[in-house]
């Protein structure tokens, strides 16, 4: 019964956790709790300094990071003879100019370094490259997913942003399973501003981390109320989730429910068989008990209680294992799925519902066979006819 319960909770929990892991990663590593972006019709967040001053006036905001972004291309091995025209050596990407310290405080970007060292504010012509831009970190090939070959820490790459072309050195390589990081190239904002002509300090994204316990919605509403809506779009991490991720999560939740339903069917069949075998092998004793005047309903109740006990004990042990072992374990050692670090999602309400469903199903599954056996003629049961 413990395994049945875990089957109900863990399988669907991991399915949901797969997307939850992705959503959590996007929140922690990219959007923060609240993100401000340029309105659709604008190129960047106008009046960014004013917006930033507003953000700094919110005590609920623990930290923030402002990013400049610009599209462009990056090339590698452009000095190697004979490879000048190789289109696979040129990738389209988004360049981001960041304040390395603020970015790290807000999204922990330095923790995502898998090679090299983290960017510093005064670094010039040095970049951190997302791993998905490099062929050696991509385990598939696609015409649509171009990558750079033979790029390591210390390699020179050429970046083209608008009319500007520069040769920069790879200082670090980042890997996060969040596309907005793994498909980007990061500069220090000091150089990037000059590179893209943003001396007005107008940025493209501002991610914020709110103080623990504060609802991001409250902060979002506060920012909107402060009058920055005219220059920027304010979203919580939930609003900013890509629609496909929401759809996948819904789909996995549905799949999880289907798996859980199958688990319930398996549980009910298991209990039916257990109780049926138990009752059929004790048919003679049931007959004797009825014979000496024990009420059939009392015997039925004992079997129902037995089923109930199986379910309650199984669920209790299952819940204990879930919250004391499995959830902390998967938090610490997430499952390494290709697009996310899968965790175990087990909201208490849903786990409680699963336990109640299991108990109800088990009681019904226990009642039916006991009723079947107990309804048999008393004398036939005693004589084994």
């Amino acid at each position, binding site marked *: 019964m413990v395994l049945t319960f875990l089957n109900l909770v863990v399988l669907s929990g991991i399915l949901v956790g797969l997307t939850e892991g992705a959503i959590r990663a996007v929140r922690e590593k990219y959007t923060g709790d609240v993100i401000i972006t340029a309105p659709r019709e604008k190129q960047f967040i106008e009046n960014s300094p004013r917006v930033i001053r507003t953000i700094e006036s919110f005590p609920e905001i623990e930290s923030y990071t402002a990013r400049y972004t610009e599209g462009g291309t990056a090339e590698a091995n452009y000095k190697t003879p004979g490879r000048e025209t190789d289109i696979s050596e040129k990738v389209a990407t988004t360049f981001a100019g960041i304040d390395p310290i603020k970015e790290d405080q807000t999204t922990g970007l330095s923790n995502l370094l898998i090679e090299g060292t983290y960017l510093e504010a005064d670094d010039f012509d040095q970049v951190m490259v997302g791993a998905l831009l490099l062929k050696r970190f991509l385990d598939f090939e696609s015409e649509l997913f171009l990558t750079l070959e033979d790029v390591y820490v210390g390699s020179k790459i050429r970046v083209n942003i608008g009319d500007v072309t520069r040769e920069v050195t790879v200082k670090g390589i980042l890997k996060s399973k969040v596309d907005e990081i793994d498909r980007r190239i990061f500069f220090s904002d000091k150089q990037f501003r000059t590179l893209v002509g943003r001396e007005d300090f107008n940025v493209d994204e501002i991610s914020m981390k709110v103080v623990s316990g504060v609802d991001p919605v409250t902060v979002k509403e506060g920012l909107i109320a402060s009058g920055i809506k005219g220059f920027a779009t304010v979203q919580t991490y939930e609003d900013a989730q890509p629609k496909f991720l929401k759809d996948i999560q819904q789909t996995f939740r549905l799949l999880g429910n289907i798996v859980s339903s199958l688990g319930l069917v398996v549980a009910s069949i298991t209990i039916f068989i257990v109780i049926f075998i138990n009752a059929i092998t004790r048919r*003679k*004793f049931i007959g*004797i*008990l*009825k*014979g*000496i*005047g*024990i*009420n*059939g309903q*009392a015997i039925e109740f004992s079997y129902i209680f037995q089923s109930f006990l199986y379910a309650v004990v199984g669920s209790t042990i299952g819940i204990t294992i879930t919250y004391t072992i499995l959830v902390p374990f998967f938090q610490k050692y997430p499952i390494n799925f290709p697009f996310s670090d899968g965790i175990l999602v087990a909201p208490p309400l849903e786990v409680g519902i699963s336990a109640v469903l299991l108990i109800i199903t088990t009681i019904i599954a226990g009642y039916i066979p006991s009723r079947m056996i107990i309804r048999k003629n*008393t*004398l036939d049961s*005693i004589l084994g006819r």
Partner: protein
Amino acid sequence: MITIENLYKTYVTGDIETKVLQGVHLNIEDGEFLAIMGRSGAGKSTLLYQISLLDEPTSGTIHIGGIETSTLSNKERVAMRLNMMGYIFQDYALIPELTAVENVMLPLIMRGDTKEAAHTEAVRSLKEVGLADRVNNLPSQLSGGEQQRVSVSRAIAHHPKILFADEPTANLDAESAKTVLELLTRLHKERKQTTIMITHEREYADYAERLVQIANGVVDSDERIDGRK
């Protein structure tokens, strides 16, 4: 008093009809110790099942204490079995997971006794059958004779008016059989409950006051036993 009139019982299996009881007439006085004998298939056990309300006759009537049993609902039959009757089965029929005292407590608790009261009464009943030192033993830890004495204890613990014993010595050696029969005789003398016992052995029937022989589904002979053991 138990009055049986023109009792028939026919078992039907598919197309085959087996007429077991074919018009039994019998009166059993309150407090009587009756032995029923007969060859295998004569109908003695079937007769016991009808009187003890474990089965329903095909036709005929049974009156117990003036109540016509065919008019009773299933619930009333269960209640009558629990309150008025005690059963001793030939294979003891003890619940293997329960200790001797717990087996005896079972019908007492079902009658509504508290656990404490049932325990006290069950221990007293086990003492009465000479098993004071075996109350906490499981059936598997008792000999056949001891198990049957637990079965007797369970049957009498609630002071039934009628005690049914279906070949209570069938699985016992001669020594244990004698112990159980002497116990039944003593209990009958002390309590004066009606006792109806099925047996194959003429020697064992001598422990009763009256012997009814069944043959071919009817009462073949009905005699008082002189020189009861």
